[in-house]
């Protein structure tokens, strides 16, 4: 069985090229999120699969930083509207912390990529224009403008005007690039008019302008000899960017269009991600609550055109449980539903892995840690809580915290940090609790009083496992003719000062035993 990224790589081996170039690109119109950085992750995976097949391959990323600002990105103020239409590369840093607007938004993204094991050659679209990389392609596009118009018009209801040229100069007067219309050229000089009223001339070799997007995309394929490129489904629509650029690539630049890998967008809690509305989730945010492998798993567990929704709140715990299970299946510590399923899950895990490991990494239950961390924040105490609740793998049951291997300790601390962040950032209110230092003032009925007193006696006499304690609590509550809900409420009310809390048995075993007995007896 092959993963879909391996399938693409396998198909690409039929292309008779010395080196494969897998391209990705992002418009720097705000924070780069997990939705529009999909192509980077896919390109990296395809590139690595190509290398495994013995093909020479490199992955590139182009910042579309010469494009105009179309909407003010969140969280910038409305005053940034004055930059609408201006190329990103010419807008100042919003916080004076970087050299430019582009650096401000692309740096956090690029900084996280090594953590995901992504290696890219990065390029700036603006610099490419300034350094003249596009010059020959601009000239050719101007010369072949009638043919390019014909290709565009084939997919348009309203045809382009006869004098339309596939080039947008940056207006010398207002600085905008999406309000200019080039209508004539002679040699390297293009004549244009701008919606601001300015009429001017622009030297195409000055870098102060850009090719129309679909022409630019085709030119870029040839410049970098791109053989494969993932892109959002919007570009893949019939008669859309890819179809048009493909024709331009073959008919104008005489270059075979790359192997297309369209992918579906990712929604955030059901809503389309939007940089301007602030609805997005970045790879950096992901790393706050999950390991880099889990984002790979999120992206690679289903086919690229399958819809994916991300919810960092409660569904994230299910997601991590699922990832941990697949990890156990990969290392033979758990069983899949069928041999076929096992093969599929192992393949997805393998593609998601960043550094191959011989043994299963230490994976204390994320869900359990969300409870343990609220009881005690010290890693050593949390380790003790895991031990008391049979939450450690068999080969670690006898190990003391100080005896943990460096790698296990690192994994443990990383997961604790992620859990801490999740609790602070995304945990719903009902998940949160705090063990009350003072006895909360609560009124209990006699049956509840009796239940708590007898539970304290039982805990004093014996060390329970969580299953045994669960059974014991049910034995006692039945004896006192209490409904489970009322019995558990009495525990939560005296310990947490609220009516609900985490699963009672494992929660009680996570607390200091002396403290718990005294609290149940309402002595401390």
């Amino acid at each position, binding site marked *: *069985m092959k993963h*879909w990224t391996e399938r693409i790589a396998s*198909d690409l081996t*039929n292309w008779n090229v010395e080196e494969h170039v897998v391209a990705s690109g992002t418009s720097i119109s705000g924070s780069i999120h997990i939705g529009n950085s999909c192509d980077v992750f896919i390109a990296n995976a395809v590139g690595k699969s190509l290398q495994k097949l013995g093909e020479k391959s490199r992955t590139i990323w182009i910042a579309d930083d010469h494009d105009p600002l179309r909407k003010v990105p969140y969280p910038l103020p409305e005053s940034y509207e004055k930059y609408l239409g201006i190329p990103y590369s010419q807008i100042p840093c919003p916080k004076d912390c970087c050299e430019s607007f582009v650096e401000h938004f692309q740096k956090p993204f690029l900084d996280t990529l090594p953590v995901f094991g992504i290696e890219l050659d990065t390029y700036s679209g603006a610099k490419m224009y300034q350094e003249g990389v596009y010059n020959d392609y601009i000239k050719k596009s101007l010369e072949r403008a009638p043919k390019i118009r014909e290709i565009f018009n084939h997919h348009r209801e309203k045809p382009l005007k006869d004098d339309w040229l596939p080039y947008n100069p940056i207006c010398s007067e207002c600085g905008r690039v999406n309000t200019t219309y080039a209508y004539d050229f002679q040699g390297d000089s293009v004549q244009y008019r701008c919606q601001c009223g300015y009429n001017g001339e622009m030297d195409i070799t000055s870098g102060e302008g850009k090719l129309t997007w679909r022409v630019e995309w085709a030119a870029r394929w040839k410049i970098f000899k791109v053989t494969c490129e993932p892109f959002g489904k919007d570009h893949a629509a019939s008669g859309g960017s890819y179809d048009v650029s493909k024709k331009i690539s073959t008919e104008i630049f005489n270059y075979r269009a790359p192997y297309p*890998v*369209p992918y579906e967008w990712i929604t955030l809690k059901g809503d389309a991600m939007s940089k301007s509305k602030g609805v997005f989730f970045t790879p950096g945010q992901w790393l706050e609550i999950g390991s880099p492998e889990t984002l790979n798993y999120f992206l690679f567990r289903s*086919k690229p*055109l399958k819809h994916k929704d991300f919810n960092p709140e409660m569904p994230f715990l299910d997601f991590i449980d699922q990832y941990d299970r697949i990890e156990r299946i990969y290392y033979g510590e758990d069983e899949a539903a069928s041999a076929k399923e096992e093969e599929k899950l192992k393949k997805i895990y393998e593609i998601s892995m960043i550094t191959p490991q011989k043994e299963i990494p230490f994976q204390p239950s994320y869900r359990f840690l969300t409870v343990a961390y609220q009881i005690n924040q010290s890693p050593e105490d949390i380790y003790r809580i895991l031990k008391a609740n049979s939450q450690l793998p068999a080969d670690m049951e006898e190990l003391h915290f100080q005896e943990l291997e460096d790698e296990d300790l690192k994994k443990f601390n990383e997961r604790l940090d992620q859990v801490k962040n999740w609790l602070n950032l995304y945990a719903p209110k009902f998940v949160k609790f705090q063990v009350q230092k003072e006895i909360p003032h609560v009124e209990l009925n006699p049956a509840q009083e009796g239940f708590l007193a007898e539970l304290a006696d039982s805990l004093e006499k014996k060390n329970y496992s969580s299953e045994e304690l669960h059974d014991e609590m049910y034995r006692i509550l039945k004896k006192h003719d209490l409904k489970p809900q009322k019995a558990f409420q009495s525990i939560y009310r005296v310990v947490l000062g609220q009516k609900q809390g985490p699963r009672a048995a494992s929660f009680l075993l996570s607390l200091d035993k002396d403290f718990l007995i005294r609290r149940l007896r309402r002595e401390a």
Partner: protein
Amino acid sequence: MSPRLVEKGVLNPLADKEVGEIDLNPFPDDFERVALVDNTKPGANVILATLREALGNRIFIEVKKAAGAAATLNQLEKAASAELAILSLADCGSCTSWVVLDAIRLEEMGIPTISIVSNRFAPFARELASTHGLDDLRLLEVEHPIAGLSVNEVEEKTLKIIPALKYILQIP
């Protein structure tokens, strides 16, 4: 001289809806072996060759069968040795019946199928599949006509259905 008796399967002319519904087989997450079932209608081989190209590096099992008859058991078993089957071409009354019925038999054998049907005969194909309990039999519609066209023209029509094929198969 005694007459030679030959047993032939015939369609139920009343087209009663069969009681049992058949579940379509899901496509595997990844597949290596694809059966290309060619009923030898003009253009069927061009369509299959064009689709084959779009499916990339895989193992293709070629099955040829007569357009005006059901596939033999041998032919079906050969097709069923793949993980999925593509049947071509349904562009007339008789061949559409047999493409649909062959596809249904393959589905019953556990093999997911895609049948290439000309848009002129697609409603009939759908009705027939529904009659046999497979409302959702996967049909890919190619623009009618195919017969009488040049190889290039058939290729051009086939290229138009490739995005849909890839979408159905969930492959890039």
